[in-house]
């Protein structure tokens, strides 16, 4: 379970600090993620989990420290940054499918505009991916016609279409009705099995136990604890993690 490939980590954050005005939202974050590793980020609301995710593809800038992806430092802005973002898939809590495009167009937009694939190639691959996440027959609908669970699976297919090196998931099931959570988690579990490098902010402990190599616990902008899931859930070492787990386990 803890066996990891050697060499340069795929994603590395070192000494990362970020402020929102007065609020020190990320404090001295050090985190390395290896190729094929699945890291679950857990912690109380407002602890900085989303911000952490969003700094990894620079949807948010940082004030100090360094973030590298595949050994390459994140560029500041412009075309370089856009190219790097193409290699980092992101799945949002609220899906964020392009509302004016069909499901198929949602998935082909990036490959056509960023990867410069032909429309035919992009569509062929998009249909494969949509089939893989179980929404192949919805390709010609628009997002508003799909259920939340289906939309989130399309969002995963849209990210996969870019052949990302790493995928970020920010509470991908939090906006879903309970009966749709598993259909999304199943897709994510199968991605993890196939060796995708993933950073997943989630409180779904079943998923963490099943798919994660490591659980990172955040509180008040800091990484407080980092452990394999079994250890973290059964014997957390910090008081804050114990306190947090007792709260989420009790409801």
């Amino acid at each position: 379970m803890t066996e990891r490939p050697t060499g340069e980590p795929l994603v590395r954050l070192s000494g990362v600090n970020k402020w929102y005005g007065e609020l020190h939202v990320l404090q001295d974050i050090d985190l390395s993620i290896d190729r094929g590793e699945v890291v679950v980020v857990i912690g109380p609301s407002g602890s900085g989990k989303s911000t952490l995710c969003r700094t990894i593809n620079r949807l948010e800038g940082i004030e100090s420290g360094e973030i590298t992806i595949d050994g390459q430092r994140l560029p500041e802005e412009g075309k370089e940054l856009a190219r790097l973002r193409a290699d980092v898939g992101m799945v949002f809590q609220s899906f964020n499918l392009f509302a004016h495009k069909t499901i198929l167009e949602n998935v082909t937009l990036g490959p056509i505009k960023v990867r410069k694939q032909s429309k035919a190639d992009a569509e062929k691959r998009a249909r494969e991916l949509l089939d893989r996440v179980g929404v192949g027959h919805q390709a010609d609908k628009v997002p508003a016609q799909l259920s939340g669970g289906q939309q989130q699976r399309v969002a995963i297919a849209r990210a996969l279409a870019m052949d990302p090196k790493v995928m970020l998931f920010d509470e991908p099931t939090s906006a879903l009705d309970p009966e749709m959570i598993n259909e999304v988690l199943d897709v994510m579990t199968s991605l993890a099995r196939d060796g995708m490098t993933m950073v997943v902010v989630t409180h779904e402990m079943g998923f963490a136990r099943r798919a994660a190599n490591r659980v990172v616990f955040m509180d008040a902008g800091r990484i407080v604890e980092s452990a394999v899931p079994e250890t973290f859930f059964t014997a957390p070492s910090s008081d804050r993690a114990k306190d947090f787990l007792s709260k989420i386990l009790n409801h």
Partner: protein
Amino acid sequence: MQFFTDNFPLLRDAFLTTLGLSLLAGLLALVLGTVLAAMRVSPIPPLRGLATFYVETFRNTPLTVVFFFIVFGLPQIDFVVSFFVGAVLSVGLYTAAFVAEALRSGINSVGPGQAEAARAIGLTFGQSLREVVLPQAFRTVVPPLGNVWIAMVKNTSIAAGFATTELAATLPRLANANAGDILLILLAVVVGYMLITVPSAYGIHRIERRVAILR
């Protein structure tokens, strides 16, 4: 009827001047307004600042003052244009600020998640705007842009005070010569404006329905 047949050439030319002025100024306002709106939402602070300065300046200056500046102020720095071009510039530059505001509110009505998702798949700022944000913003801006257009058509009447013989300029001229036909003169001028604004309103309504179905 005698009045109309006598004055038809003048009214027709004035109508065509108003129409030409509206179309040219509208085109200028649309192009410049789109650029300004893109600047206002761009990630580059100096561009944002420049566009905000432009919009606030023109929005808060009476159109007559803009005309005065273009027609009488610019020649002071050796930039002389004909009265008609001056009118196009005045109305166009002024209206661009309102177009930019309408577009910007349309852009802001598209949830931030849409632009974020676009950037997250690696689209550049320009691509995100073109492919994702503007097509959605367009839906919400058709009615306000329509209002800007209709207000602009009527605003071209300010050109009457700056030596351009458009529709409104015919009012005093015809009234002097035909004191008994004031109501007819007014009617002719109002109909002239309505020949532009009423079909516009119909067209705007059609476009609005088209883009709504597209959804």
